[in-house]
């Protein structure tokens, strides 16, 4: 545990009585936790600070990501006090945003593939997956393509492929998906706006 002189003074000032009691055999954990917070505060002050927006409900609270300049990793995310809507505060989910970064052990890191009838995932390369996906898209589209409807009207649509999502990606990504779907003639297009 590193404590600077200034941090130590703050610590002993705030928790002086707690420190004194701990010498009598009482629990030191709250004191250590507080000291760790001070340590983190110093790391935050030394970090590269990047503004972002919370990714849960649609209030659009501002957050600041603190990035370690040496490792390039995010180590803290907190509310942006300059943001006019949230003024630095966040709800329980927003306050836990750090757990969505790569610090979360469940994050997907590799392309996964599940073969027909298989009972498990296997890792694949992007190139392999893209080639296979494109082949499936093209074969399915070409096989099920509807050029004209029952009335003989030109409809140029693909009714055998659906596309769902997403309202939790950025605008530019939404637009790309929206136009890519249209170019392929997809009509079963929907996302969370409806559910």
């Amino acid at each position, binding site marked *: 545990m590193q404590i600077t002189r200034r941090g130590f003074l703050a610590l002993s000032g705030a928790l002086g009585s707690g420190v004194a009691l701990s010498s009598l055999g009482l629990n030191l954990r709250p004191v250590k936790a507080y000291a760790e917070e001070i340590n983190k505060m110093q790391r935050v002050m030394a970090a590269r600070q990047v503004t972002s927006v919370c*990714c849960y409900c649609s209030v659009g609270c501002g957050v600041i990501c603190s990035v370690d300049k040496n490792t390039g990793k995010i180590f803290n995310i907190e509310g942006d006090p300059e943001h006019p809507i949230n003024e630095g505060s966040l709800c329980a989910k927003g306050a836990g945003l750090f757990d969505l970064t790569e610090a979360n052990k469940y994050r997907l890191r590799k392309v996964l593939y599940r073969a027909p009838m298989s009972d498990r995932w296997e890792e694949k390369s992007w190139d392999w997956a893209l080639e296979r996906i494109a082949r499936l898209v*093209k074969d399915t589209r070409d096989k099920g393509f509807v*050029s004209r409807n029952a009335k003989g009207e030109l409809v140029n649509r693909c009714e055998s492929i659906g596309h769902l999502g*997403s*309202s939790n990606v950025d*605008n530019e990504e939404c637009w790309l998906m929206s136009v890519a779907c249209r170019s392929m003639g997809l009509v079963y297009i929907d996302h969370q706006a*409806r559910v």
Partner: protein
Amino acid sequence: MTNHYIDLKNSDVILIMGSNAAEHHPIAFKWILRAKDRGATIIHVDPRYTRTSARCDFHVPLRSGTDIAFLGGMINYILNNRKIFREYVLHYTNASFIVSKAFHFKDGLFSGYDPKTRKYSKNTWVFDKDSRGVPERDMTLTNPRCVYQLLKKHYSRYTLDQVSSITGVTKDDLLKVYEAYSATGVRDKAGTNCYALGWTHHTTGSQIIRTMSIIQLLLGNMGICGGGVNALRGEPNVQGSTDHCILYGNLPGYLKMPVASQDTLAKYLEKNTPKSSDPQSANYYQNYPKFTVSFLKALFGDKATAQNGFGYSWLPKLDDGQATSLMHLFDDMYKGKIKGLFAVGTDPAVSSPNTVKVRKALENLEWLVGENIFDNETYSFWKGPGVDPAKVKTEVFLLPASASMEKEGGQSNSGRWVQWKYKAAEAPDDAIPVGEITIKIMDSVRALYAKEGGKNPVPILNLKWDYKDSNGRFDVLKVAKQINGHFLKDTVIEDKAKGTKTVYKKGQLVPTFGMLMDDGSTSGGNWIMAGSFEANGANKMAKRGKEDPTGLGLYPNWSFAWPVNRRIIYNRASCDLNGKPFNPKRKLLEWTGNAWVGDVPDGPWPPQADKQKGKYPFIMKADGLGALFGPGMAEGPFPEHYEPLEGPLSRNPLSGQLINPAVKIFNSDLDKVANADEKFPYVCTTYSCTEHWCSGALTRWQAWLLEAMPELYVEIGEPLAKEKGIRNGERVKVSSVRGAVECVAMVTKRFRPFLVEGKTVHQVGLPFNYGWLHPKDGGDSTNFLTPTVGDANTFCPEYKAFMVNVTKL
């Protein structure tokens, strides 16, 4: 939202109905509490007592699915007690319009209904017009065929006794809400409404919102500070994803999806461009061709020419009247028609209605492509409960995506603020942004079509698709600028009012949608986003200015709000006919004699009193006025109470139509319905909690949040628990005719029984945040219980009112 989050602080009465803002939008609720601190009255109308109720002046419980009855009773109260803001109603709404004599309403049905198709012909839902083609009006509002009188007649049936009997709300409670809210029908008071999924998730959802819109127009609460109809939306960019229309029925910017009968661009534009003969109506949608052609230019670039109709014929067309929503998708997947599915940042195996059907449907897929930051129940459906992987043929790809803070881009909040996010760190290992995944997949598909040909390859090959930087990575700014739109040739824009001429060079960004053209000389990927950049390329979405010149919390220099940085839409309606603010204490806008000062006005024209140049305030309506009579809706121009698809009553106390006559009935073998069935006697609703988000597909993987809210539970009122012998914390089974879930019983005072049509009706509720994949013992999807049925206009599923039984395990 017509307004925005901070503006909630400006309200005098806030009706929170169909929302649990304190728990689901805690930071929005902070602004509601600021209003309360100022002396505002805060009302919560909801089946369940929640933390929102706890902070409100009063909570009024109502039976799920009876909101139109409740609000219809408020319209009746407002009209009978002369609470309307008459000046506003007379001049800014269609109250005075004369409706065709052919229009009628009898026993729950409007004129034009066809029971075979369950659809209305709307050709009698029209106004009488004068020789110029302008709607006839009666400014005394006494003509029995005027909208005001028809409205009054329609809602005269919604008496206190009738509404109380349907909703289960006592007459005292009804009056308490009606009196408090209708007190805002004066110049210097503002009332607003906050709703969320509690309104949209009904077979009558759109009409619930319309009923509130009617109330807001009657009280003069639209277009003003502290007013409006405000949806607290539930996903971080659901505003943006809706604006860009990843939806079957619209193209980006809410342009209509073309249908088969519109086989040429000319026919499509003719059908979708509204006309008005009234010189005082701005009828802003007369610019529809400019928005459409500019979109086609953004889509197909140089390949879109005047000669080929800008590529219109390459677009897919739905059959007239065809719908292909999420529920249609799973219905057709269940029937074997859908072979492949992209599921991006979504978990429909938990979030879609009727889980048994959805999960069976997934087994029919040949392939599934998932893109996400965590695995979920959809991507792993092949190893789900009761599924034998050896029998599932589906090839599944799960592509690792960057999390929100690992990429740069724009995100739109409910108040239409488009805010810019910066990339804070690289995504782990092979994860990349969804935008880059989309580019890579389309690159591969395009390469195959270029090499092999195939069915209708033209739109795929002609798609403008150059959104990579010099390193071959997703260039988010290139896409953002394409959405904003460009001048495609040197253009001189003349502003006659200002007497200026501005030259824009080919390749410059279009600074406002007013400069989009229908001749192919501009592109614009989404017209409502035009102006998100300055012509010189400066990104307005990234602005962080804290100036607040009006003192009303508009923050015009923080981010960019569509349209054209307008913070409160319909804002010209905050002023009288001469452009003077109704409420000088909250001066949103004022006409100074030659210009509007304040918020960005809803158009530059002088106020309505100027008969030569003045325009009506509701510029997106063809008639220019707020629609008390709304002929665009699927089930009628006036909202009417119908029971949910599944409810406790076998007859509708108001008419012979039990359920919404215009909803689509899905009828596969797994679409069972049990209305007023003693085997499923309790009304059930679903909701979220603060610690989880939607299906829980992101939050269930986070230890802190999971510890706070670890597993599925059902809230049961004390009287029902006593009747069933269920104690707090015991395990129970909740079942509908479609499926069942097991969970913990939470016996609570928060649900109390309702007295409905003289009988006691119990209601229970469950959160919808859980699924089998993680945590292992947290319970499965609440949507095993819900039916495949949706709103007649939007197909939003009816998650908020259906029938269940609860039994002890």
